[in-house]
């Protein structure tokens, strides 16, 4: 019976471990050449699979070779939260956008890379990080070291972006952000020359624009509810900074938990303080019920602004006519530019307009366009050359002229910062030239 002693078992285990090494090495070779299986996860793949599959068969014959000319595709990789708590972003935020972008480019033949003297289609390599940050960093390591992808874009959420950017930096890879944006990016770009932002955030430049809008329409007092996480804390503290020195008074500033269930008492308290404007710096899970409670209690302040919430088409679809007058960060719509009009049309044809994000849709797509065009301008797949192009060139995107100001898209590139639902359209109401409709203030009554 000594045969079954613990040592023996441990041995077996470590043999397995060693076996796994060999297997993985083998798998690594495999994966570098065959790609269809791992590419585009399901969702709305019908359109994705077309071009990707054809390119994949080509690559099977010519294993990835670093010598020029031996390569037919440009591989873009990312680890995304396809399952787990963050899957909503992959499904509704960046996910639909990158699939669409890659198909758009490939339908036109691909990216023109001078180094190779030809058009090269983009091949996607997407893994699922299960909403786990450890898995996320590991998969970026895999994408870089084992799959040797040519370019990366970001994982889901800000915390994941920072962790993944660290991996990318250590291998000198450019990291284009996805659903990540926070004031701490200002610090990050100082330490990491490879990270590029994409979304607007509190002091870039949403809250300052919001405050000038408030001044324009004559808001005298504000009440703030904020979720007690990264997002809520940043917006509320930037709002506090921006509002000091103006004649707008902050009546209250209340932290709320992510799993708040019942808003009735919070809304009743807000009502008794009665500020002109209510700001909800939280997510749809909190903002939807908050708006619901306001409708129910028939409390209608002159201005209501939500963090991510109102910017989704799903918000307007859920609340119907009651959505009208509610403001949200974002912002863009089909009227913002001809490029965005055409983009909206194509998005609607491919998905449904109900899936549109009137905040991130434009910046996500523009960011990918910027990377694609930077590759073409550099005429190379070399990270440093493309990095140089990103830092110095201007790009023509759906949002119009697009360029980087210390690794963040310049503030004036964005189509807007604050939007308001008016007759089913998320109108840009920023003071200045970006405005697509005059703000309605005070907002209309809730429909009966």
């Amino acid at each position, binding site marked *: 019976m000594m045969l079954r002693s613990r040592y023996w078992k441990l041995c077996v285990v470590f043999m397995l471990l060693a076996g796994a090494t060999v297997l993985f090495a083998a798998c690594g070779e495999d994966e570098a050449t065959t790609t269809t299986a791992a590419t585009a996860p399901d969702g709305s793949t019908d359109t994705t699979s077309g071009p990707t599959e054809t390119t994949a068969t080509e690559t099977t014959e010519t294993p990835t070779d670093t010598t020029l000319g031996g390569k037919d595709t440009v591989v873009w990789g990312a680890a995304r939260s396809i399952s787990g708590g963050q899957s909503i972003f992959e499904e509704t935020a960046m996910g639909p956008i990158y699939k669409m972008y890659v198909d758009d480019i490939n339908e036109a033949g691909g990216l023109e890379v001078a180094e190779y003297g030809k058009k090269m289609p983009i091949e996607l390599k997407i893994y699922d990080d299960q909403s786990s940050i450890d898995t996320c960093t590991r998969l970026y390591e895999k994408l870089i070291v084992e799959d040797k992808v040519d370019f990366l874009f970001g994982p889901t959420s800000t915390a994941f972006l920072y962790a993944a950017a660290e991996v990318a930096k250590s291998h000198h890879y450019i990291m284009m952000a996805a659903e990540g944006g926070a004031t701490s990016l200002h610090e990050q770009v100082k330490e990491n020359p490879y990270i590029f932002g994409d979304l607007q955030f509190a002091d870039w430049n949403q809250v300052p624009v919001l405050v000038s809008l408030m001044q324009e329409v004559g808001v005298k007092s504000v009440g703030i509810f904020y979720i007690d996480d990264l997002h809520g804390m940043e917006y509320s503290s930037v709002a506090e900074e921006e509002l000091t020195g103006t004649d707008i008074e902050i009546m209250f500033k209340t932290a709320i*938990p992510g799993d708040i269930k019942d808003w009735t*008492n919070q809304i009743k308290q807000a009502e008794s303080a009665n500020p002109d404007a209510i700001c909800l710096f939280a997510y749809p899970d909190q903002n939807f*019920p908050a708006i619901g409670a306001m409708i*129910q*209690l028939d409390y209608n302040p002159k201005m209501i602004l939500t963090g991510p919430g109102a910017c989704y088409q799903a918000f307007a679809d859920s609340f119907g006519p009651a959505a009208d007058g509610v403001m949200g960060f974002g912002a863009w719509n089909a009227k913002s530019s001809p490029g965005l009009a055409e983009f909206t049309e194509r998005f609607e044809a491919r998905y449904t307009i109900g899936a549109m994000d009137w905040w991130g849709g434009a910046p996500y797509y523009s960011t990918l366009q910027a990377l694609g065009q930077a590759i073409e301008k550099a005429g190379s797949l070399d990270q440093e050359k493309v990095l140089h192009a990103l830092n110095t060139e201007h790009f023509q995107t759906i949002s119009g002229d697009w360029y980087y100001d210390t690794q963040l898209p310049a503030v004036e590139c964005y189509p807007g910062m604050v939007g308001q639902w008016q007759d089913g359209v998320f109108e840009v109401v920023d003071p200045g030239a970006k405005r697509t409709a005059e703000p309605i203030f005070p907002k209309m009554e809730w429909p009966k």
Partner: protein
Amino acid sequence: MGAARDIIIAGLLLGGIYALIAAGLSLQYGVARVLNVSHGEFIMIGAFITWWMFTNLALDPLISIVITGPLMFVLGILLYRFIYRKIMVDSESIDAFEGSSMLAAFGFLYVVQNVARWIWGSNTYAYTYMATSVTSARIPLNRLVALAVVAVVAIIFYVFLSHTRMGKAIRASAQDPTTAGLVGVNVYRVLGLCFGLGLAMAGIAGSLLSILYSVNTSMGLGYTVIALIVVVLGGLGSVQGAFIGGILLGLMSSLVSYYQPSMTMVAYYVVFILLLLIRPKGIMGK
């Protein structure tokens, strides 16, 4: 005065729903001995079915209770029959069964949630139903209706437990399954029935929650946690305790969230952990 009134009203309205959620969990544990940590996932299924029927078929959410309740009941019976009963037969002792069945429930948590995500995606949805308020205290009408539904369910259940043969069998099996089996109660049938009833309550609670709050496929765990807290508060396995615990937690939540909403969850867990340490049998426990 206004504040106290608002806190109490909101607490009672919230507590009613909590009680219904917890009663289902308590029934499952108290009689069937399954600590069903996937309870919240079935609430989510109930909520989604109701939302789906409201938006696609324009079916009144109160009518869909008559659908979600029985549907979940049947699902519960099947789950018990094919999963938990096998685990019970294989287990050496009741303690071993409690451990294994809880772990199986964890497995179902993942399975149900991911099947739902596969069907409905990860988006948050909401709809408006009876979105007005009544009386001078401005009580939200839909919450009041939800509380009334909970009361009706509680009364029906009470009558069922105290006035029917099956109810008697359930009470007997809860107290002493072995003896109940000896005197001719088909214990497995009773346990399966209780598990099914627990899920039916989850389904009904889900329908009501979809009226009051938004729905998304990851909402389940939060409600499981609340049910666990309530059940510990009221005494694990005691259905009356679940109702009292639910109301108490609702009141406490309302009080804390009135003054410092971000502390609500901390307060839940502090109460929960203190209670486990000081009086693990719960306030109604024997």
